[in-house]
């Protein structure tokens, strides 16, 4: 059935328009939550998730395949891997300065940066990137293409596939209750 994703996708002016109106707001909200998580409820996990969901919304409006091509795969991989490296990098930097993993006080002592900024780096550069990247990646990986044998399988007609699965189910549904 998923083979039909791109077949059934038809541009809808209504959805496109409202997504065009709403997407900037959700993106801003996600960024606000990420950047302002230190002093108000919210933080990088939530903000990253909302940023990721914004991309999902765009994918629903513009079609999943075009969105995936627009947001190339290497960008996503770079997003996730970059997040993990930034997190690890900050942790190792404090160790290089002679402290423990993520001991932010050292930034203050050695470089004169308040410990808060170390945390913000972790939050914005680390966790938010990882969460947003993983959410988008999981969505595209689950939504995208088909293994060839299934593609031929379902090409006959979607109804037949559903019917076959349904028959099998109802047969066994009868059996298992006895």
């Amino acid at each position, binding site marked *: 059935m998923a083979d039909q994703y791109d077949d059934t996708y038809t541009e809808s002016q209504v959805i496109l328009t409202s997504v065009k109106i709403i997407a900037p707001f959700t993106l801003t909200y996600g960024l606000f939550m990420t950047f302002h998580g*230190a002093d108000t*409820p919210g933080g990088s996990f939530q903000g990253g998730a909302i940023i990721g969901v914004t991309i999902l919304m765009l994918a629903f409006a513009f079609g999943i395949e075009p969105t995936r091509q627009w947001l190339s795969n290497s960008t996503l991989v770079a997003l996730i891997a970059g997040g993990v490296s930034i997190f690890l990098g900050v942790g190792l930097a404090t160790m290089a300065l002679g402290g423990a993993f993520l001991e932010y006080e050292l930034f203050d002592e050695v470089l004169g940066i308040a410990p808060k900024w170390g945390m913000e780096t972790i*939050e914005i550069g680390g966790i938010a990137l990882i969460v947003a990247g993983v959410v988008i990646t999981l969505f595209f990986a*689950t939504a995208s293409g088909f293994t060839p044998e299934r593609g031929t399988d379902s090409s006959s007609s979607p109804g037949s596939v559903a019917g076959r*699965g349904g028959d099998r189910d109802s047969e066994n549904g009868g059996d298992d209750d006895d």
Partner: protein
Amino acid sequence: MTMSWFAYTLMVFILLTAVTTALFRDVLSAIVVFGAYSLGMAIFYTFLLAPDVAMTEAAIGAGVTTILLLLTIARTTRPSTDRLFERVHWPGVVAVGAFAIVLLWTVLPEMVAVGAEDAPVWANADVTQYYIQHTYDDTGVQNAVTAVLAAYRGFDTFGEAVVVFAAGVAVLIVLKREVFA
């Protein structure tokens, strides 16, 4: 200490959606009801003074999980149904009911009442009270959750981030696709 009517209504809603999720035979209906359940749970977290958790649950539990489940049944199969509800699996009900009763009878009397100030987690001077009183001095942020997440337990969070990263890699491997080639 007594519960408010708001919490009571919300709990009934959560319970009803959970039971219908378990019993609906149609997978699509179950997924939709599960989304409603997650949303109710998010509101209940707000009631329990956990806005951070509520936001995460609303974005991820009600949003992303529902989308992933829907995509999965779109890509696989959705059994056609003539009945609305699943037949109740009585041995399962008995086993699970026994489990619940054992939990309720053995664990509940040992628990401190909900929201009591002498609850061991809350009154712990080395953990909770320390965090509450030293967060601003130690880290300079006001949100204690962020402080614990990124500073006090940063190494823990790093582990979680790597787990999420690993899960993303695992999905790509399992679905071995041309997607991320």
